[in-house]
């Protein structure tokens, strides 16, 4: 039996497309429509009508510049820290772990067995007054009686770094693991020392993992609001917290939608610039 040739790939695409259409495209259209609505004069809470008020975008952005800035700064910091922690980790698992490789990989994924929220709440305990860290720092006189770690940007960035670490580690591991050991041997044969070999051979060959890992960390981190809500204070709110509060607390759907769109576009621009610079050829 022969199937007609052309439609097969399209048929295979169909379930994915149907899913994305229903759960991504339609909501996006709805979000776009909501973002330009304004409150009905004399209407009740949560009642809006379409008036193509594109000024919503400008107002929403200007009112929340600070939280936008903070989101990108925190997400960048978390990405950098996660990379700094994950690279040696992935390197060790890929090259030095021997028979423990599988166990170590399971340990990297193990945090996913518990809820994201519970893990973040656990960080609150760890960094809290009765945790291990604060009393130790106090006894070493590194921290004053009135200073705390929770409710600071340190706690938020630490929580984000921790929560997104596996997303950084796994792609890094995948690309490091694929490196042909003979390329490293060849480098040695050509009289390169360990540092030069790492710089000239290992790092360039692991770049696809670095690019994938930083994207997988940065994008969700920029939109995250759980860490800031649980570990932060009013002075460390991120754009995700503003969107949540606009939607649920103030019942201001248009501003929430406009902010979501702005965030999406901002991330898209940053990611495009980044990929242009880093190159996607190696990514696949």
């Amino acid at each position, binding site marked *: 039996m022969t199937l007609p040739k052309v439609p097969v790939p399209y048929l295979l695409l169909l379930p994915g497309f149907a899913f994305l259409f229903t759960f991504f495209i339609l909501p996006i259209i709805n979000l776009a429509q909501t973002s330009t609505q304004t409150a009905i004069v004399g209407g009740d809470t949560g009642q809006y009508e379409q008036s193509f008020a594109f000024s919503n975008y400008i107002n929403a952005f200007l009112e929340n510049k600070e939280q936008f800035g903070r989101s990108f700064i925190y997400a960048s910091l978390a990405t950098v820290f996660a990379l700094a922690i994950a690279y040696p980790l992935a390197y060790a698992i890929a090259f030095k772990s021997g028979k423990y490789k599988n166990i170590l990989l399971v340990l990297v994924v193990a945090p996913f067995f518990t809820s994201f929220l519970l893990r973040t709440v656990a960080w609150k305990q760890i960094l809290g007054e009765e945790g291990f860290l604060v009393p130790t720092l106090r006894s070493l006189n590194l921290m004053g009686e009135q200073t705390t770690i929770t409710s600071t940007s340190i706690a938020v960035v630490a929580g984000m770094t921790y929560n997104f670490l596996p997303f950084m580690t796994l792609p890094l591991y995948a690309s490091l693991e694929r490196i042909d050991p003979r390329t490293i041997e060849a480098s040695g044969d050509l009289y390169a020392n360990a540092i030069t070999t790492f710089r000239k051979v290992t790092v360039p060959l692991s770049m696809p993992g670095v690019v994938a890992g930083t994207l997988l960390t940065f994008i969700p981190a920029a939109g995250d609001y759980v860490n800031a809500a649980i570990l932060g204070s009013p002075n460390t709110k991120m754009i995700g917290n503003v969107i949540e*509060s606009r939607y649920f607390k103030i*019942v201001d759907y248009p501003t929430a939608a406009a902010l979501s769109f702005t965030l999406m576009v901002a991330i898209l621009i940053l990611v495009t610039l980044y990929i242009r610079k880093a190159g996607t050829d190696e990514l696949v």
Partner: protein
Amino acid sequence: MATERSISPEARSILGARISRRSVLAGAGGLGAVGLLAACGGGGDSAAENIVRWGNWPLYLDFDEESKTYPTLVKFSESTGIDAQYFEDYNDNDEFFGKVQAQLKLGEDIGYDVVTPTDWMAARWIRLGYTQKFDLANIPNAGNILDSLKSPSYDPMRESTLTWQGIMAGFGWNTEKNPKGIRTLDDLFAPQNKGKIVVLSEMRDTIGVILLAQGVDITKVTEDEFMNAVDFMAGKISDGWIRGVKGNEYAEDLTSGDATAVIGWSGDMFILANENEGKFDFAIPESGGTISGDNLMIPSTASPTGKTNGEKLINYYYDPAVAAEVAAYVNYVCPVQGAQAEMEKIAPELATSEYIFPSENTSSRLNVFRSLTPAEESTWAEAFQQAQGN
């Protein structure tokens, strides 16, 4: 309250033995947060079977740790044959409203026959026509409601709402850090509490307490007065006095030592005080505290069977003996007349508790935040959210 009366040792031992609500609360911060994401709704269709589906706040009904059941609810089901399904998924007024609003608007079943919104949210539901009027023939006990709760501005005849529990907001504190207690805003913003103050995310409670301290009558508050109080709070946040604006989670911050003083709710503080050997205390501010209520109501989308069963359920909980049993567990202000006498029989120590049955002296210092217009509701909420960095 601290000034009037503290809990007797007998009451403490009774509570210690019976209530382990606090131990449940330890995980509640996480659960509350889970609620942010989990869009779990109520049960199936009440029209098809003899059931009633009730959405209520967490830890707000007597619960037996051993059998993992709600004793009063079990008795209700046994005596009426109605299958009462209880959902502890009303975590936040705004969040719950956001979740069911679209269905209410379309008239589709929201999965609950009884819901429990706070006064101002109940007002919004009534305004939008999202509730059904009670058939009072099914609720003969409705007359048991306390006189002071009989005619709120949003439902003057109590035609579609009845108070579930009353909630007092005032000052809570760590007695080791604040040995003299907290009675005024100056006591709250004392140097030892700098950076360790948490206030409630319920706008009417936090701003209400601040307004009362500024000498404003919250039953008539104007926009200027309100914004002035919000600015006061914003200043205390940016100056690093207030570390957080939170819901029930402030209780965890108090136990962990991250907070030493709060604007908090009476019921939480009662539990904290009793389970930590007097390490915490609560008082209504000298200038006055706020009182609000959570209300039992029937959504417009409930089926006729669901509505009738809901009314029977409400009637059951307005029986003084049942109300006393619930109050002994939840420790919020009991709205049912005659429950105090019933409490004498089951836990005499609690019958004199200021937390559950406030005396005349306490009641006189409690105030109800005035109803807001829809326009005020959004601009005031916006100002309150922006002050906390949102």
